[in-house]
């Protein structure tokens, strides 16, 4: 079956100019020289090597070459490039560390990739008021490292936090294991400085939550770079919990683990994190990080409870332990030291990265279901993978019902690529059948654009299109993302897929 748009383009979401890929040959011939004149030679990458290195993010199934890549050194330089692109009708796409998993940083129509990786400074730390101003190219973890001494941290902790940028986190409204208790990125961003799609530098929000204006910051968080390029942000700093208990529970059946998750939540306990890993991922994780577990383990739950007083946290952990035992867990091992705890979290957070030990390529899917449906859903995931003849491993935020089935395969074989894409779609459809969502935290990007109409009515999508049009009523700023409104979407998809190795 040919992959294509499942629905006709929905008119009226944005004005309908032709969405043509930018053709460097037909376009402005002096593109890279012009960019060099604007930013200097050290800040412009062009040529075949740059086109390749920036043709996808960590979602490697679809690829599209940029005509040039720029590395601006400040907000004003970002604005200069955007204004230049607007003047010459060149599409542009922002990129942080390129760790996204849905193709959000894919330069879908070519054009200019605007990297934030030279915007990596912390500009102001306001400890008494627990907030910080930082440029958005900085890696997430560096934000927390900078205030650790004061007992604070930036709470959103996506698994890629050692590299993923603040800007990327804002664009995707990133979550992470501790989302369960602390919320997603939008709950921690107070204000932003953004270069809008016309190249104006604008600011929204401020140093604190809850101004009288409409919550534009909330809208910008999760807009996947389609509303502009955020270059600086005020973020909220959260106290580190005084008491943390981390347990690793092992089960000899998948059902045992998934029933435990549903049970813990049903009991009213909200751990700080409740993560699941199945036997597929354990092969890679034990080789990479030396995590050990009892023989016969089919699933592990990584459970963390935290708080400010020992008694409450211990009571929570005891409740968790009881649910684990009632589901016949093989063992519950507590992390005894901070080093043990760090090792468990490294294994969890870098677990997907270790999948290269099993196959040359992975696609990490992202769907959400009600937690009570976890047992049924995982059974379905294994069945779909078996039918598609691709490997699957699961490593995910079980506590908030956010699945990450991770398919591993060889992307040099087009047949396998096709199977993986189809299996992914089947899983997302099932998520929706069970009352869930097409994405939990990885974003829509180009990966899920076809699936949006399965979740939203035409009226829903039109409303979202209007919201987008407040900031972006053109087609240059990160085109072909989120909303399935573009013409020629079928051809674009074939082109992206054709670029795969």
């Amino acid at each position, binding site marked *: 079956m040919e992959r294509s748009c499942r629905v006709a383009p929905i008119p009226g979401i944005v004005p309908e100019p032709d969405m043509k890929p930018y053709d460097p040959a037909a376009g402005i011939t002096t593109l890279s020289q012009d960019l060099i004149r604007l930013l200097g030679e050290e800040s412009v990458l062009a040529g075949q090597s740059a086109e390749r290195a920036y043709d996808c993010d960590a979602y490697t199934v679809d690829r599209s070459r940029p005509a040039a890549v720029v590395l601006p050194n400040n907000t004003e330089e970002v604005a200069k490039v955007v204004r230049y692109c607007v003047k010459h009708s060149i599409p542009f796409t922002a990129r942080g560390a390129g760790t996204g998993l849905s193709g959000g940083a894919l330069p879908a129509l070519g054009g200019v990739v605007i990297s934030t990786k030279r915007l990596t400074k912390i500009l102001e730390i306001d400890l008494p008021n627990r907030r910080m101003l930082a440029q958005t190219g900085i890696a997430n973890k560096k934000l927390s490292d900078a205030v650790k001494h004061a007992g604070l941290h930036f709470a959103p902790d996506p698994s890629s936090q050692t590299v993923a940028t603040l800007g990327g986190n804002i664009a995707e409204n990133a979550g992470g294991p501790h989302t369960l208790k602390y919320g997603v990125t939008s709950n921690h961003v107070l204000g932003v400085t953004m270069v809008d799609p016309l190249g104006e530098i604008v600011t929204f929000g401020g140093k604190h939550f809850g101004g009288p204006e409409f919550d534009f910051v909330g809208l910008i968080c999760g807009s996947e770079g389609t509303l502009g390029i955020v270059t600086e942000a005020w973020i909220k700093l959260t106290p580190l919990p005084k008491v943390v208990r981390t347990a690793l529970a092992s089960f000899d059946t998948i059902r045992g683990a998934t029933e435990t998750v549903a049970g813990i939540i049903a009991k009213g306990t909200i751990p700080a994190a409740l993560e699941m890993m199945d036997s597929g991922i354990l092969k890679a994780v034990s*080789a990479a990080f030396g995590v050990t577990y009892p023989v016969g383990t089919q699933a592990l739950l990584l459970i963390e409870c935290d708080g400010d007083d020992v008694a409450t946290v211990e009571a929570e952990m005891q409740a968790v332990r009881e649910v684990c035992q009632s589901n016949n867990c093989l063992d519950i091992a507590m992390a005894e030291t901070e080093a043990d705890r760090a090792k468990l979290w490294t294994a969890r957070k870098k677990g997907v990265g270790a999948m*290269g030990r099993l196959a040359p390529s992975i696609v990490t899917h992202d769907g959400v279901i009600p937690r009570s449906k976890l047992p049924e859903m995982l059974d379905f995931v294994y069945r779909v993978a078996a039918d598609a003849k691709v490997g699957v491993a699961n490593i995910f935020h079980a506590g908030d019902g956010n699945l990450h089935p991770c398919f591993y395969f060889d992307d040099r074989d087009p047949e396998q690529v096709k199977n993986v894409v189809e299996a992914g779609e089947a899983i997302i459809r099932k998520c929706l059948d069970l009352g869930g969502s097409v994405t939990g935290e990885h974003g829509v990007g180009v990966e899920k654009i076809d699936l949006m109409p399965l979740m939203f009515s035409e009226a829903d999508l039109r409303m979202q299109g209007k919201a987008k049009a407040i900031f972006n009523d053109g087609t240059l700023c990160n085109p072909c993302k989120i909303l399935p409104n573009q013409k020629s979407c079928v051809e674009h998809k074939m082109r992206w897929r054709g670029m795969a190795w």
Partner: protein
Amino acid sequence: MKRVEDLTAQCIRCGFCLEDCPTFTETGSELESPRGRIYLVRSAVEGKLRWQEDVKPHLDRCLGCRACETACPSGVQYGAILEFARDKIEQEKPSALKKGFLAGTTSPTILRTQLNLARLLPGKRVPGPLSKLLSGETAEADLPTLPTALKGDPLAGMDQASLPAVKGEVYLLEGCAMRVLYPHVHWATRRLLRRIGYVVREVPQGCCGALHAHNGYLDEAKKMGNSLVQTLSGDLPIVVNSAGCGSTMKEYGHLLETEAGAEFAKRTFDLSEFLLQNGLQEELAKAKGLSQRITYHDACHLSHGQKITEAPRALLKSIPNAEYVELPESLTCCGSAGIYNVVQPKLARRLLNRKWKHVESTQATVVAMGNPGCHGWIAQASRETGGRIEVVHTAELLERAFSG
């Protein structure tokens, strides 16, 4: 040897290596990142990019520090990919100048002669025209100065009564540049080995081939490696005090593709691990000690190449009366990286400045390390800032704890 197609296919492009790559964090460019470089090599192997025009400039800018290997959850063997690709590029279009420079650096006789001649030149840096030719940039690295030759028995003057009986012999890799530029490190090494009951079996020996393997001359590296395997034959442990050499020698199984190479690799030890395993800590407890504030820089080929970070720290922390402080970003390359500070002076200088800023922040009186490349380069930063912080090889400092 594993096929390069398979080595590059192991990268799933997760990007977890990026923040650990010094050239990526300095430039922000993914062309100067491990993920980018692996993709470029993979594309060139598949005929989609050109080795010289598209790939070479970015591999030239790679330090080969292998911090990405430590960061990589998938276990991608970046070092092996880099060696393959650089060899491919050099063999396709050899650079006579680079080859000559390597030959000069790795032959003790030529190196000694060159350095003697260089004293006649004006200035203290690598000669400008040579630097321009090699890198297109102005030189940053000072020419090394020839140390005064050490004569006599290294073991002379040791307090025989306090020494344990001799347990056995080891080989010591004398190295090419190491024996010319740092004879006093070998001197200290021999004394430390004696303090744990080992003496060095002295044999004439050549270069290990590490610099050749790292710079695109795998065939030469193999020749040198095979010859070293023959010279240091038998079953004696081989002790190495230069991280770059040790790292390559531990990978002889892969490089030489022989059983003998693999067997040789198994009996190769970095000095710090050998000293720790064989009881130097107990000996140190009885030593006079040093009243110094010590910090330690991880040479990349020790920490990332050989995964040795704890042994040298454990030893330094055991020096009586000394205070040990951690160096921020100790795992980040200083920019020396073999011949990198000669072929990429600009980036190398930025990394040196970054390293030195951290060294100064520790307020240490002495910084120790286990590799001649870092040693010379970081010592230059010390000289340039008034020489208040001494730069030494770990072995020198440990030996001083005994003999003052």
